[in-house]
């Protein structure tokens, strides 16, 4: 049996076309399909396909759960930078989804990396934190802090980051975002990758041969790093803000938050149920609003970059499980978008509670428990508090319902109705906590002076929104 890991998302269709052109049509993988697991390859009965978010594929291939994968080379590099010994072999550039990985700064702010290095501390935002960290070390920034973000890193400069390391189609696309590319780290595209042990011990030619044809002699995908800069930090501090900053979410919470705000009489022009502009006018004196990913909000509030943020309690809990000393806390419950964070297992597991599951696995002599989770700190806290014996938390980027039972024993997942869980032959055996959308604030740092009035007025209106949602 040859096991393949293929990408979901935007590259699903071109990848499917490429496979079909190579005589490896995958049933249920093409346009419009949402299937994730056990997809057959009719021309190769010994092959089975599982579909993942691209970011998750390198780990699955490294673990040996899959022999061959197709994913962006940048995600492989992101993993190899942190874990140089992991057994992945990039084999060939499939020349799909061309892009680049860039280090970019706000236009006209920092013409060179040396100018950046003169900051007291360089604020770097990236959804590729390992590569960004290596980049900062190679550049020899005297001091920097890295904001690891879930996505949309380009939205952070100039207010919330001095430098962003992110993927874009090309340099022009970077400039269109108001950023200036200071360094090109790598050329990126979909690559064919393999597990080293599988390469060494299994006959993979039935899949590799047709895919390798026409994929050789392609561009160099190696990570490039900057020469060391020679900068002495200056002591200049950033000027204090004279306005209040509020972060509001995009993604699946947007609709709920839009509704809750409206219920409290708050409307931001351009922030609708399904569409948004990045910086909608607030319509309130002294208040600035920005739309970012909810997963990153608690940290930004803790840092003082935002005074208030609206996000799910699950994201705040994840932050606090990772950093118990953080000053971020829940100020107001908006009572919308309710769901549970639950422990989910295979529907056929003979257990209805976590205690029963643990007892069953122990009786079976199971040596290690694999927990898949989009919120790894929450999962780790849960595993510790439930006294799991040896366990590993597998951070995942999405497409989570297909991980159990083949690739993980437990899934820590947000569940609303339980319908998707049941459809995938899974079951909930423990509810860990209940999440609703809340307002996050920073402990012991209420604004003073001219900002105080705007802050308290905004808090009051958000409180009313929470109360209105209850009614």
């Amino acid at each position: 049996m040859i096991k393949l890991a293929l990408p979901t998302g935007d590259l699903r269709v071109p990848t499917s076309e490429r496979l079909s052109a190579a005589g490896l049509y995958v049933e249920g993988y093409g346009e419009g399909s949402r299937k994730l697991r056990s997809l057959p390859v009719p021309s190769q009965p010994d092959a089975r396909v599982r579909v993942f978010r691209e970011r998750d594929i390198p780990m699955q291939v490294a673990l040996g759960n899959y022999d061959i994968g197709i994913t962006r080379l940048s995600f492989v590099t992101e993993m190899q930078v942190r874990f140089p010994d992991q057994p992945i072999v990039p084999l060939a550039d499939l020349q799909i989804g061309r892009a680049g990985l860039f280090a970019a700064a706000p236009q006209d702010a920092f013409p060179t990396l040396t100018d950046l290095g003169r900051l007291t501390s360089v604020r770097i935002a990236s959804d590729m934190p390992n590569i960004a960290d290596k980049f900062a070390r190679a550049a020899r920034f005297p001091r920097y802090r890295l904001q690891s973000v879930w996505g949309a890193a380009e939205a952070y400069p100039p207010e919330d980051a001095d430098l962003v390391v992110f993927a874009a189609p090309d340099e022009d696309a970077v400039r269109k975002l108001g950023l200036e590319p200071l360094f090109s780290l790598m050329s990126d595209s979909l690559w064919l990758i393999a597990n080293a042990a599988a390469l060494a011990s299994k006959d993979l030619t039935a899949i590799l041969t047709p895919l390798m044809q026409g994929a050789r002699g392609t561009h160099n995908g190696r990570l490039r790093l900057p020469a060391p800069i020679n900068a002495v930090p200056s002591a200049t501090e950033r000027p204090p803000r004279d306005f209040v900053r509020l972060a509001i979410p995009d993604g699946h919470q947007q609709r709920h938050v839009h509704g809750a705000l409206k219920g409290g009489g708050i409307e931001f022009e351009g922030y609708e149920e399904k569409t948004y502009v990045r910086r909608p006018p607030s319509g309130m004196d002294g208040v600035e609003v920005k739309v970012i990913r909810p997963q990153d909000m608690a940290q930004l509030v803790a840092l003082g970059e935002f005074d208030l943020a609206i996000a799910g309690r699950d994201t705040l809990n994840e932050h606090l499980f990772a950093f118990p000393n953080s000053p971020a806390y829940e100020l107001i419950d908006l009572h919308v978008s309710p769901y549970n964070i639950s422990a989910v297992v295979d529907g056929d597991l003979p257990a209805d509670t976590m205690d029963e599951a643990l007892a069953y696995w122990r009786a079976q002599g199971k040596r290690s428990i694999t927990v898949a989770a989009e919120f790894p700190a929450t999962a780790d806290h849960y595993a510790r508090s439930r006294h799991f014996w040896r366990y590993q938390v597998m951070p995942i980027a999405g497409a989570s319902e297909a991980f159990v039972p083949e690739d993980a024993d437990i899934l820590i997942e947000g569940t609303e109705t339980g319908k998707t869980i049941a459809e995938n032959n899974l079951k909930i055996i423990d509810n860990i906590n209940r999440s609703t959308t809340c307002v996050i604030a920073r402990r012991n740092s209420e604004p003073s002076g001219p900002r105080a009035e705007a802050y308290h007025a905004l808090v009051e209106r958000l409180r009313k929104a929470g109360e209105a949602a209850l009614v």
Partner: protein
Amino acid sequence: MRSKGMRDMLPADMQTFRRIEGAFLDVCLGWGYHEVRTPTIEHLYLFTQAGTLSPQMLDRVYSFLDWDGWTGERVVLRPDSTIPAVRLFVENLDGASAKLFYVQNVFRFDPGDETREDWQFGVELLGDTFPRGDIELVLLAREVIDSLGVNTTIELSHPGIVRSVLDRAGLSRSEQLAVYERVLSGDLDAFEEVEEKLPGSASIHSLLATKGEGPDYIENLRTVLATDIPGIGAPLAELQAVATMLSRMGLAHQIAPLGVRSFEYYTGPVFSLYAGDKRVGGGGRYDALVGLVGRDNVPASGFAIDHEALAPLLPPAGARPEPVTIRCESEAALSRAFALARELRQGSTSVQVVSGAPAGGREVVVSEAGYTLALNGGSPLQLSDIADVVRELSRP
């Protein structure tokens, strides 16, 4: 179950460790140094800000976000002791000088099976100028290792030699750093590539890769190189000063122009101690480091002895006397057994209290009736008074 790259220290290992530690403490205290210890965890920026660890070294540090790392700034398990010791000096000690020593571990990732945790016996001499402090540290380090019965040879170098060559080659500051980092990581080919940009006909790379004996060799280098590379004069003169003093004291040594180690903070003469071909320790002058960490510059130098390298080279230690075994026959006799153990330990006799079958060797069986001694296979001796037991056991 043991984590990769970490190692247990078994009783025999700890015995060796304590021998080195004991010798190190005796010598350091004898020279007027004071012991300190820095925390295992430090801010990463302590090392990046000082600009003194190469990216290659920084790639090997154990860095992570601490429980309060929500600021996005990472911490590290200390990869080096000198920079934390300098931070300790800057933040805690008044005055322009300090003589410090420490015994502590450092953590550096190794991709293979080598240990990732090393113990260092280190000395930092802050505020003492060239060349007196440099000579003192060479003598101190030698004294520690000599006292352990290991013969060493001394090797001297100076990072200014490499830097002056790179400067003369017309490399920009960034290019110099890049080449220097390659040299520090052992890639001497980098130096060969620079040679094309240098004036003169001498093969700089071959010349500097040659190790020579004492002050005469330094003079030869100066004669051949100083015209084309004027900047090499100052480091060679500093090296010469140390080499001449060591020669006067009868200490043979080698000059290794490219013998720089993987730390960038050295600004003056550096030395290594070798037992055979094994480097067991070394250090050097770092006059700019205190300024980089946050105070006005203070001249300074230091060294560390590497436990991992030195421990296997120690000659066997004399056997320790086996402890006296006190075997307790009943619970009622337990208090009597522990009282005897305390008396013996106060007399510096090592004791173990056991129950169960006889273990052999020097043994006392304690019962409610008294004490039975079995000594060197002789007939058992019955005693009732604890003082008599102590006296019998203290006989040679």
